[in-house]
């Protein structure tokens, strides 16, 4: 499972590099001792990703929970992985944030050592391997399930990959979600998503799916107009990653509400 340091050529993997230095970034050694717990599904968060006309939209709620308490209501769960892809996380927050940081460094390190960025397919595979490398933590119940989306510059299209807890990688051609509210979010997107949606429609569909998830899942935070907390939304197109401004997200949310008022 662990690729050996090749004896010929420079290994462009940052993960291999830090491991050879004796750092254990994903807690591979953690499984020693103790009864393994059954892997739990991610117990917080909803992150959705969907295709739209120009690429991929990814949006996440802002709530972090500790048991029944809300630990944080402004947490970001969607991050740029590099200039043309974003990664959203669900699961144990500490482990998930570490995975994101490692993945970001991994991609940049490869790009600098090789002089070229990895293909999107290569990045998605690498993320799967990083998840699989944290299997001992998964067996301890510390599960992270990311979702990955990016613009494939070679194919000229947006692509979405979803993962399972042990590193299975599945490509989605329309939309998907991860986290405890993902079922509700997917049900919502099932009704609203259309191939080739425009940006505004796509952002509204994403925001509405998070709203639907927050209404059914305690661990998913809804928009909070009073304190100005809205989902974090990122868009990836051929031009790169863009964080959607809070104002645009707010307008999308208001449009969703207006439609609901009109129909009830």
């Amino acid at each position, binding site marked *: 499972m662990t690729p050996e340091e090749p004896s010929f050529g420079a290994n462009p993997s940052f993960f291999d*590099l*830090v491991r050879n230095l004796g*750092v254990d970034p994903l807690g591979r050694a953690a499984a020693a001792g103790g009864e393994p717990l059954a892997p739990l599904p991610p117990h917080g968060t909803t992150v959705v990703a969907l295709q739209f006309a120009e690429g991929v939209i990814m949006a996440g709620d802002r709530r972090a929970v500790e048991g029944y308490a809300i630990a944080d209501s402004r947490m970001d769960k969607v991050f740029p992985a590099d200039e043309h892809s974003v990664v959203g996380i669900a699961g144990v927050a500490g482990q998930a944030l570490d995975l994101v940081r490692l993945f970001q*460094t991994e991609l940049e390190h490869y790009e600098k050592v090789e002089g070229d960025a990895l293909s999107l397919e290569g990045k998605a595979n690498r993320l799967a391997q990083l998840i699989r490398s944290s299997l001992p933590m998964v067996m301890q119940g510390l599960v992270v399930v990311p979702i990955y989306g990016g613009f494939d510059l070679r194919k000229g299209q947006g692509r979405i990959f979803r993962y399972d807890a042990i590193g299975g990688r599945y490509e989605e051609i329309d939309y998907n979600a991860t986290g405890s509210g993902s079922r509700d979010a997917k049900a919502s997107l099932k009704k609203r998503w259309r191939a080739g949606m425009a940006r505004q429609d796509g952002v509204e569909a994403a925001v509405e799916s998070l709203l639907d998830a927050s209404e059914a899942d305690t661990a998913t935070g809804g928009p909070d107009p009073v304190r100005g907390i809205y989902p974090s939304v990122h868009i990836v197109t051929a031009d790169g990653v863009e964080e959607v401004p809070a104002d645009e997200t707010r307008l999308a949310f208001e449009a969703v509400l207006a439609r609901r008022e009109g129909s009830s």
Partner: protein
Amino acid sequence: MPMPFYVAPEQMMKDRSDYARKGIARGKPVIAMEYADGILFIADNPSTHLYKISEIYDRIAFAAVGKYSEFENLRIAGVRLADVRGYSYDREDVTAKSLANAYSQGLATIFTQEMKPYEVEILVAQVGERPEDNELFHILYDGSVTDEDGFVVMGGEAEALADRLKSGYRQGMDLSDAAKVGVESLWPQDGERLDPSRLEVAVLDRTRPRRKFLRLPDEELGRILQG
């Protein structure tokens, strides 16, 4: 086993220096110069894929002349050092100074202990928040390091080139003026003018987001030289 001939240490160091210098002077030059928004790098490099100027980290770039296999080795070592440090501490904690120190130590060891010294000269440059915070570390084949101001010239007929550059260089030039002065000084004074597509050009631009390093493709360079 036959006794090796005695060679005085002074002679040995001199021989090694001469060897390294000759190798470096055979190569084509690279210049780096500070301009209003950052640091501009120009290399005479016919290859479009084998670079002499590269990104090391957010604010730090690497430029080298001499033997490709040797400076490529040093470049990758620098990327590794920077990425490990930034991951272990914070991105802000990766500095050109610590990289320059590491290169200096490494090259000094190679110079004295290996069969042959590295035939390279390298530059580690860091763009600062303000022009006066820029850092240019020029490191030689034997590990000696100098902290430079304004511009640095390496490789080729470096001294003649530096004289030409000095006459045109002014502090705080904009990118277009700096590029003109730089490209002009690279062109030989007599003989034919170089084809600009032979030039490898990059900047560390402080106005860019996190990663300040940017390669300027030929079309972009053409536009800048016109402007």
